[in-house]
């Protein structure tokens, strides 16, 4: 099913390189010198917020951030070597709702400067080499289509230890934030759940390490596949994490959802994640886990 470089490309949005689409604004945080924190409603000076890893200095609300920013926060400076940037979304189903998928893709690429909802590559975290994969919520709600699924799978495969080849592998760290599977790729996006999970089975068989980091929000087909399969699962504070979205659940059970339902702390209590880790500690925490794993 995979189209290669020689495939006709007429159906797809025009190919774009990073430099062509890059200089867009960061879509995750509104513009302006000051902004209001959605959690405590205090006015926060943007510079202070950014210097604080986009965590509200007043109430520690963790603002949503894009993949580029996430990589900057987690990787040692100048060490991130991006991989798989040659993959671009296609429109295999010629999907059309009120807009066509092609129109949506181009609009999202221009808005975010991203090719799709993911960035992956090798880097060092406090001096420890790792494969770092970050989903990008700013691009179509971080939804998983073929490019996201393929990038994750290739990253896992590239980091899987191979005894025969004397390759020790790399720890895999995936930072998730996603609305779930990408509806515009329908059944093919559903299959990415099986593909990524199968790749993790092989990583596990080979004794590799996978640390899954859940951030706000992680729902649907992403949660129900690779995101919940970490050897260790970390979550940022107060992140919404679940299978079904709160609105769907509310419509099904027809009652108010309890306070804090599907938030990181709720999952911690339910036994579904290992640790809730504030953004400021994430690098240290990842480095420590890599050390403990002996990988």
């Amino acid at each position, binding site marked *: *099913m995979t189209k290669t470089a020689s495939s006709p490309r007429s159906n797809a949005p025009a190919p774009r390189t990073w430099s062509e689409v890059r200089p867009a604004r960061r879509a995750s945080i509104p513009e302006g010198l000051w902004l209001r924190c959605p959690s405590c409603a205090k006015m926060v000076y943007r510079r202070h917020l950014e210097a604080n890893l986009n965590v509200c200095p007043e109430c520690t609300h963790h603002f949503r951030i894009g993949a580029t920013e996430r990589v900057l926060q987690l990787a040692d400076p100048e060490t991130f070597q991006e991989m798989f940037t040659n993959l671009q979304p296609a429109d295999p189903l010629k999907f059309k709702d*009120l807009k066509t998928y092609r129109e949506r893709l181009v609009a999202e690429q221009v808005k975010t400067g991203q090719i799709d909802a993911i960035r992956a590559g090798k880097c060092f975290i406090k001096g420890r080499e790792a494969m770092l994969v970050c989903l990008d919520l700013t691009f179509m709600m971080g939804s998983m289509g073929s490019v996201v699924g393929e990038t994750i799978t290739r990253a896992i495969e590239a980091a899987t230890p191979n005894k025969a080849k004397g390759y020790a592998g790399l720890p895999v760290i995936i930072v998730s934030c996603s609305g779930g*599977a990408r*509806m515009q790729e329908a*059944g093919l996006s*559903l299959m990415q759940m099986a*593909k990524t999970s*199968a790749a993790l089975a092989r990583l596990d068989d080979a004794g590799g390490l996978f640390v899954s980091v859940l951030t706000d929000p992680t729902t649907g087909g992403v949660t*129900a596949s690779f995101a*919940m399969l970490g050897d260790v699962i970390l979550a940022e504070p107060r992140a919404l994490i679940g299978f079904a979205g709160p609105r769907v659940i509310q419509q099904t059970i027809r009652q108010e959802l309890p306070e804090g339902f599907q938030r990181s702390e709720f999952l911690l209590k339910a036994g579904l994640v290992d640790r809730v880790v504030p953004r400021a500690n994430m690098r240290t925490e990842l480095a420590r886990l890599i050390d403990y794993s002996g990988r």
Partner: protein
Amino acid sequence: MATYYQLDFEKPLVQLDQKIDDIESRIRVEEPDPALATGVESLRSQAQSLKTERAGMLSDIYSKLTAWQTVRVARHPLRPQTRDYIELMTRDFAEMHGDRRFGDDPALVTGMCRIGPIKVMLVGHQKGRETSEKIACHFGCAHPEGYRKALLKMQLAEKFGLPIVTLVDTPGAYPGLGAEQRGQAEAIAVNLREMSRLRVPIVSIVIGEGGSGGALGIAVADRVAMLQHAWYSVISPEGCAAILWKEANEQTNTAAAKSLKLTAADNLELGIVDDVIPEALGGAHRDPKATANSLSDWIVRTLQELKKQSPEDLVNARYERFRRMGQFLEQAPA
């Protein structure tokens, strides 16, 4: 006749059914009287030609089903479910209950049985037929304990060296408080990972609805097939319409169903399923036995073929089957 649940696009049949009914009751009344023999004879031939006309009409309607109409057939209240197929195509069913952790989810039925000459572990969604069963089964929406029970029994099958047959029929995994608290996402995810490395043959058939992760959670298989009028996709047409069209109604559901490429033929073309199993004329609910026969024929044939592979080859081929999934563009690296 015509007392069963009526799909709106089957309305053209109603008049014919009525006529056939009338004639047949006249035949019943007039038959005992020898003086009316010629009349009865002509009534019989009238009934026969109406029945031929009806079969033609049915075949015509079902050959032109839209995607949304297909979804409606897949949800027909009389459509055979997992327990019906167990009744119709298996022998010596030994049901196995419970996940050993929380409970026994009736929305996923598991147990050993024989299909033709083969002993298998069968796993299938059950929607429920009577109201009380429907409620207990949450209309085929399984909870985490259902997915965990399915995995436990599949791992038992691996230990016993039994091939696994799964029947998929769910609108989706259950969205509720308890399901979330007990790790619905984790339960499905673990099934995806573990099914990919089970060392026995696995075949899955979407017999009705194949809704999203709740369907895939028992469908990571060596061969996947769909019954002719089943649907399989990432979301239901109503769910998709509500999000992308901002409103679910007859018109947007129709459009969403079409866009989602959810029919058996579409999934075959996309390479998501390997085979389409024909149903009785006018849908599985019109002749469950005939549909069960084609289903069991496919299962036996496919399992006999898979039996020839070593466990290593089987697991590798299963990995490659899902590894290929997806379509994207790839530039040669600069």
